[in-house]
């Protein structure tokens, strides 16, 4: 049981390049999330998904796209990377979320992305 895994762990891009970050979870969780972590700002939600085939915008969605074609995978895409997207990206998943329900999010180890 690996929990939440992220690929790759590190990446350096040039401005304008594209890439996809992969998040995988083996806990049969319905909900998955992508966050970015920047110094002094904590974690900010980029996009999330409440189930296979569904996605929704979070707090800072601009410049990113996501897809959830399979329940266990959640992809984060950068179509044209910018230096402002240099950050550490965390994926998380939770069993469920909703009115009066428990929403512990389990986090992956992170991907450190640098855009030059």
């Amino acid at each position, binding site marked *: 049981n690996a929990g*939440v895994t992220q690929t790759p762990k590190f990446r350096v891009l040039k401005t304008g390049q594209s890439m996809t970050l992969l998040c995988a979870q083996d806990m049969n969780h319905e*909900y998955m*999330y992508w*966050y970015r972590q920047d110094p*002094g*700002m*904590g*974690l*900010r*939600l980029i996009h*999330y998904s*409440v189930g296979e085939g569904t996605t*929704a915008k*979070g*707090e800072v969605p601009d410049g990113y796209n996501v897809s959830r074609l399979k329940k266990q995978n959640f992809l984060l895409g950068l179509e044209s990377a910018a230096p402002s997207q240099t950050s550490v990206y*965390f994926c*998380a998943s939770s069993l469920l*979320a*909703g*009115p*009066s*329900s*428990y*929403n*512990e*999010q389990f*986090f*992956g*180890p*992170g991907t450190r992305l640098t855009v030059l």
Partner: protein
Amino acid sequence: AQSVTQLDSQVPVFEEAPVELRCNYSSSVSVYLFWYVQYPNQGLQLLLKYLSGSTLVKGINGFEAEFNKSQTSFHLRKPSVHISDTAEYFCAVSGEYNNNDMRFGAGTRLTVKP
């Protein structure tokens, strides 16, 4: 939407001393509150949570937090810290009826010195 303010960006303490990490939140709806810990080069791990019921919640590693609705606070405490508690601590809040949208504070770096 909810928001969180962690009042201290850095807290240095000596080993075996008590510590309090402060967190205030803002919300127009009922909330769930969380404290997460992040060790260097790792993801976040849940320390404790408040969903409802008793306002004093106990978590892992000897930490506890108290929910104070009138002061909109959720401060984290430990009576005696260890070197191994050195980490970054994040307070987080989500709305009770929309807890997909979790908002995190900026973090407090706890450094425990020998």
